[in-house]
């Protein structure tokens, strides 16, 4: 039977590749699970029939191949190993591999950035819950209270709206506060202050007052943290006029963005991700700042432009490995600046590849991807050979169950599928 023949050949291929990369196995089984949930089977069959893919019989997109269920259990372990593989992949061409530098974890890079800025400018202060004595719930401000005192690293009571407003008032009168939301979701309570005051006061005061605040915190889907701690809120803030939004993804750009955000005269919202705090990378010893408005070229390529940010960058890079093995050459850009978009880097890429895939963790409805799709269509419609494909997370509150949580966000196998479809 057709199916059995394919599975047999697939098994052979898999055993060949399993020695090459464990992450690869993860991709396979994840894909089948994902495909099962999303009912991609019809498209899957189509893709199987297509001749563009060099390995048409790979069960990447199979939903019927239940014998793979045996491998689903293995995928759990493979999932854990894949995380390490992700960490190892952060050898970023932009991280100045030529210089010796020092190795840091991402949260340490953020702390270095904070500390350097606090050292440089005595008006920089931190407001947040548990930032002082506790050192920050993700240890980003560890040790800073001992060094700079309780007033510069202020442990606030649990009153997000008010202490964010306090940061606005302090910024208006000369300080440069960094507000930490213990989780980005808590900043929903501060939405009034962020939208009306942070964003608007420079304008409504006719330019008299600047609000140089940085609002930062971890967001995104973690490991079974439940719906309210796993929110993807970039979309909620993006319409606020007057603020800039950036998302960090590597220790290098985390430190650079933190410093740039603190130095910026505009209010900046810096999105970090709960699962990325332990990424390790070698970053330069000397001081550096990264531009708040520019995107980062992660992997140059020719066939397709993949735009992503934050954690999805790693899913994309994982998928890129698969794609490269399949013969594709994706260009991966970490957009970093969620508001405003760096249309120059993005545009140049589109002019080269003519196909765009957006991979994001944000919600489908009104998300960053939706805005980006609109912006690209407006500006680069002539250069597109195919409609923009946008892979976002599902419009659901993040479920607690691990299986459901995994399929809430975009998985590398979906990315591979999408690229294959785009490049047909």
């Amino acid at each position, binding site marked *: 039977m057709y199916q059995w023949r394919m599975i047999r050949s697939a098994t052979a291929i898999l055993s060949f590749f399993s020695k090459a990369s464990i992450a690869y196995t993860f991709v396979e089984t994840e894909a089948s699970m994902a495909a099962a949930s999303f009912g991609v089977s019809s498209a899957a069959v189509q893709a199987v029939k297509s001749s563009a893919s060099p390995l048409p019989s790979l069960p990447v997109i199979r939903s019927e191949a239940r014998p793979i269920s045996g491998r689903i259990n293995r995928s759990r372990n493979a999932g854990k190993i894949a995380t390490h593989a992700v960490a190892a992949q952060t050898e970023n061409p932009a991280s100045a591999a030529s210089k010796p530098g020092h190795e840091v974890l991402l949260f340490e890079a953020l702390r270095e950035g904070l500390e350097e800025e606090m050292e440089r400018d005595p008006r920089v202060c931190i407001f947040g819950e548990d930032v002082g004595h506790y050192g920050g719930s993700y240890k980003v401000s560890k040790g800073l209270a001992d060094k700079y005192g309780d007033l510069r690293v202020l442990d606030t009571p649990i009153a997000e709206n008010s202490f964010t407003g306090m940061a606005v008032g302090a910024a208006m*009168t000369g300080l440069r506060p960094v507000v930490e939301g213990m989780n980005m979701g808590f900043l929903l309570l501060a939405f009034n202050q962020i939208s009306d005051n942070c964003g608007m006061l420079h304008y409504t005061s006719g330019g008299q007052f600047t609000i140089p605040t940085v609002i930062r915190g971890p967001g995104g889907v973690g490991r079974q943290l439940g719906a309210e701690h796993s929110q993807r809120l970039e979309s909620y803030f993006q319409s606020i006029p007057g603020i800039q939004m950036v998302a960090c993804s590597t220790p290098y750009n985390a430190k650079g963005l933190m410093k740039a955000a603190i130095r910026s005269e505009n209010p900046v919202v810096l999105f970090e991700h709960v699962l990325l705090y332990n990424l390790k990378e070698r970053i330069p010893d000397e001081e550096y700042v990264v531009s708040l408005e520019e995107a980062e070229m992660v992997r140059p390529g020719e066939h397709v432009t993949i735009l992503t940010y934050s954690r999805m960058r790693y899913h994309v890079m994982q998928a890129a490995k698969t794609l490269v093995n399949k013969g594709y050459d994706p260009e991966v850009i970490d957009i970093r600046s969620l508001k405003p978009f760096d*249309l120059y880097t993005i545009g140049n890429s589109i002019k080269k590849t003519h196909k765009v895939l957006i991979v994001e963790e944000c919600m489908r409805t009104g998300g960053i991807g939706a805005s980006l799709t609109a912006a690209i269509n407006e500006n680069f419609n002539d250069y597109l050979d195919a409609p923009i494909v946008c892979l976002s997370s599902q419009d659901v509150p993040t479920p607690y169950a691990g299986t459901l949580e995994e399929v809430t966000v975009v998985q590398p196998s979906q990315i591979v599928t999408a690229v294959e479809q785009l490049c047909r």
Partner: protein
Amino acid sequence: MAKIIHNPLVLSSSRSAEKSESCCKLSGPTSFMSSKFLGNKLLSTNSATSPATRRSAAVVAVSSDVVKEKKLKSSSSLANLLITKEEGLVLYEDMILGRAFEDMCAQMYYRGKMFGFVHLYNGQEAVSTGFIKLLKQEDCVVSTYRDHVHALSKGVPARQVMSELFGKTTGCCRGQGGSMHMFSKEHNVLGGFAFIGEGIPVATGAAFTSKYKREVLKEDCDEVTLAFFGDGTCNNGQFFECLNMAALWKLPIVFVVENNLWAIGMSHLRSTSDPQIWKKGPAFGMPGVHVDGMDVLKVREVAQEAIGRARRGEGPTLVECETYRFRGHSLADPDELRDPAEKAHYATRDPITSLKKYLFENNLANEAELKAIDKKIDEIIEDSVEFADESPVPARNQLLENVFADPRGFGIGPDGKYRCEDPKFTQGTAQV
């Protein structure tokens, strides 16, 4: 530190208008709550506690020792006047400026020179004058949408405020703010907020900066912040959160409640479980003071103490000023809900007439001097209207100008240059 003053006498409202007695006789909440005009409302909404019970709960206020001392001292004679002639004239002028300005606003609104939501301050001038005239230029004031007079008292020229209301580019916020968003960096007016309660955290932040400058930057800083807000705001979360933080860190701030008993059409008594707002101060560890907000001298006395406390680093104070607005909530409010008898009652307690009476009775000023001030103010107001009329409207290129302090925030366009470098940007025709 804070003592409860038990005043067994039921103070009738007329007593509070008497300037010859001690100005620090803090009129109890009973004086306005027991007035017959509100009696009906009390009965209908609070069947649990009868008015009689309320009347007997005559705890006046919790206030600091200094105020109490002054009360004892000056109750003896009229010799210790509360203000000098110069001070009296300054207060008078400021209140007349506020009143005349607001009346002119109403006229201009009905003539179609300004639009939107305009909230007038008629009747509450004593609070603004009483507090703000004690401040230095570096002290900050944060207000609500009813902010014209706060800006004027703080020193923002009437011309700039009127221009702002007309939406002209010479306004204090270049016409971008409007009636509800009066800002002035020069005079440290930190707004002007449309949502109630929104300004209180901002004020707390400004007070925090003052403390930070003193303790971290080691500057010689004793700047104080005043946060003005209404009775409706006192049921809002931001109010309580900021009371907590201000008391916790002993921030140099004074929370001034302009309790005019009405939040648009919602009576304070119908929306608040315990209408005595000053009581909420001690709950957070700061003194709560109730003062007759229709009497500028009483307000000034309390303000001196509260601002002094803040300057000395002793922490925040909550001051509840019993006041009243003679007009509706805004110029769009028909003001049909309030009892005309209540309005008439408070009209007899007009702060300007009270101050006038005090000045005459104590021979601090005569009719001619006050008339001269009236005339001067009229001229200022006329001039401000003329100025605003003649000022240019904002040009189109002003639209995107102050969205970002650093205009690179508009991002990089497809051509690789920052959008703000695009010449079309300044013409207001660029697409972002």
